[in-house]
């Protein structure tokens, strides 16, 4: 077993990445000085990232990590189970967590009131723990609990954007209503699954469901509730209405964190339920994949891309673009073939990295110049050349220019669609990529080709983003380049995930 940590630390890693941030959140909440809370948050997320990296290495060598909570054996006790499908998502969430914490040092100074900063970090750690928890757990009801832990703290975090823009409150409220409905639908589905199988452990559920070969009516009902509930959480096209508001008005560090991780964790859960708990070869699941996920994915790609073109607020542009990108992932997943599913999965990881970088850069523009609208981007390339360069790399990756991570995943998606004979899907991906050129190109054109605005007849002074913001931004921008030029590692992770989903390697 390849691991670089001492024995007990790597053995307990699956539970430590969840428990550590939860415990530390309590300490953060009572810290009198926000800087101490920030240091605790940074150290906690760093430790989690190291543990997550260790987990990925362990999974690559051992296949599956199973951790029995409290020593109760899996079908009875809660099991934390990490395999090729969720290990990369764990790494993504914890790495983005570190980057957003670094970033938050300066951004919270600008957008959160001083006495609310320590609770802000506490809520951030709870959301972080909840997301990691819902990804690592192998127990269906435990998923619901962590889903709500992360969601409730996320509502609070979104509402904290209110000191900058009061619409954050309204957005947080809408997110709360729709998010709770989604989570409740999910728990109804889990209830029906429990009725059908008498177990809550996902692997055990899969075994029990395999006995009723063609899927009973109760199982079908459970599947419908779970898909709709998770669809709300992951912003599947017609259920995405909470997303633009929440992304546009949340504090900047939180927007980047949510965009890169929250919808991705929910997407992972959808994959876990569709492909490992249920059997994708069943007729009703195959029909759902083709006619619901793939079709809604394509419709979402078009509608959300068009909506992105007509937005004035830069963060809303990227929020609608996120809905479109989720459409790509769902299209890949909806094909149900190994190629398609691994393409969707690699796009899930790449899009997390790319969107994280884009939202961090937008936050930096706002931090220095108060810029929120696309029309105010004029001359930003000259005023903040380094920040804008990172933004440009990520924007090109989002469009899918060769040499970037976005190209790799879109190329995989096109190959999979062609292989599947879905030429309409090939056309849809190409056309919506052109739409992405329009909405991202609008920002790039203004930033690089337009002159900087004059204030009182003098050009605005150039002010680069502070270094804590710059570090995270460039790490993500370089990652999106490296994964574009040398895509071996993400593709290997994605094929490992596809093998877990379709290879019967439970």
């Amino acid at each position, binding site marked *: 077993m390849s691991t670089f940590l001492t024995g007990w630390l790597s053995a307990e890693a699956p539970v430590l990445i969840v428990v550590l941030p939860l415990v530390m959140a309590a300490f953060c909440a009572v810290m009198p000085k926000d800087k101490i809370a920030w240091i605790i948050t940074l150290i906690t997320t760093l430790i989690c990232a190291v543990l997550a990296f260790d987990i990925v290495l362990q999974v690559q060598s051992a296949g599956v990590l199973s951790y029995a909570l409290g020593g109760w054996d899996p079908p009875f006790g809660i099991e934390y189970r990490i395999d090729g499908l969720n290990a990369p998502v764990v790494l993504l969430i914890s790495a983005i967590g570190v980057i957003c914490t670094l970033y938050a040092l300066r951004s919270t*100074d*600008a957008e959160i009131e001083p006495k609310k900063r320590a609770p802000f970090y506490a809520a951030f750690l709870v959301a972080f723990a909840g997301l990691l928890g819902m990804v690592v757990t192998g127990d269906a*009801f435990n998923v*619901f*609990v962590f889903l*709500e832990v992360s969601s*409730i703290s996320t*509502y*609070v975090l979104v*509402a904290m954007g*209110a000191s*900058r*823009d*009061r*619409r954050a*409150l*309204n957005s*947080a*409220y809408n997110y*709360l*209503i729709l998010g*709770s*409905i989604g*989570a*409740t639908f999910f*728990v*109804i589905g889990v*209830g029906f699954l*429990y*009725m059908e199988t008498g177990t809550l452990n996902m692997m055990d559920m899969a075994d029990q469901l395999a006995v009723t070969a063609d899927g009973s009516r109760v199982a079908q009902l459970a599947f419908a509730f779970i898909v709709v509930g998770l669809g709300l959480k992951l912003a599947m096209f017609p259920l995405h209405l909470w997303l633009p508001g929440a992304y546009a008005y949340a504090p900047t560090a939180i927007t980047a964190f949510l965009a890169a991780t929250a919808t991705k964790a929910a997407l992972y859960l959808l994959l876990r339920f569709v492909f490992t708990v249920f059997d994708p070869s069943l007729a009703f699941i195959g029909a759902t994949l083709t006619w619901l996920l793939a079709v809604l994915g394509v419709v979402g790609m078009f509608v959300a891309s068009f909506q992105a073109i007509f937005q004035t*607020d830069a963060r809303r542009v990227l929020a609608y673009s996120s809905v479109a990108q989720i459409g790509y992932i769902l299209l890949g997943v909806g094909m149900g073939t190994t190629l398609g599913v691994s393409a969707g999965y690699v796009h899930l990881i790449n899009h997390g990295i790319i969107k994280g970088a884009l939202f961090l850069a937008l936050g930096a523009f*706002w*931090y*220095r*110049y*108060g810029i*929120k*609208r696309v029309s105010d981007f004029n001359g930003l390339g000259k005023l903040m050349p380094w920040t804008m360069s990172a933004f440009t790399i990520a924007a090109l990756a989002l469009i899918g220019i060769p040499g970037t991570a976005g190209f790799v995943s879109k190329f995989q998606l096109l190959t999979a669609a062609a292989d599947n004979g879905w030429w309409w899907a090939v056309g849809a991906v190409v056309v919506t990529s052109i739409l992405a050129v329009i909405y991202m190109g609008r920002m790039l054109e203004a930033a690089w080709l337009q002159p900087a605005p004059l204030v009182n007849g003098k050009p605005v002074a150039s002010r680069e983003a502070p270094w804590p913001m710059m570090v995270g931004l460039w790490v993500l921008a370089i990652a999106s380049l490296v994964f574009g030029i040398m895509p071996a590692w993400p593709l290997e992770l994605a094929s490992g995930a596809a093998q877990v989903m379709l290879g019967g390697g439970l």
Partner: protein
Amino acid sequence: MFSEFITHFNYIVVIILMMTGLYVVFSASNMIKKLVGLSVFQTSVFLLYITMGKVTGGVPPIIEGLHGGDYGPENGAGHGAEAAGQAAEILYSNPLPHVLILTAIVVGVATLAVGLALVVRIREVYGTIEEVEIDRLNYAFNMDGVDEAASGETP
């Protein structure tokens, strides 16, 4: 027909509550009423889980002999083993869904608390809790272009 109604009474109540709750969430404009609807919706799920835990003819899942007067360090172990032997013959209801629902109730309370806190803040900032009115204010806010004025505090 009528006997089906009796045997599925709980499920019928669950469906009625669920639909009522969802309808209130979607149709109400008042934010407090929406939260009430959400709570009704969540409560219907509690009832669903509790109903599925009931086994026909089952008794509460409490092992009898363990709580007798002679339960102590010396006698307890023997009685416990005896009681465990009896347990195989007694039909118990399933306690697990009840435990799950305890967790779900806590989650529901937390959601409601955060929701109500948000409504209080919305009332402070907007002066209303009617969603139609807030949408109108936000729309006017967008049209007047006072966005920058509200967020001009860059360091």
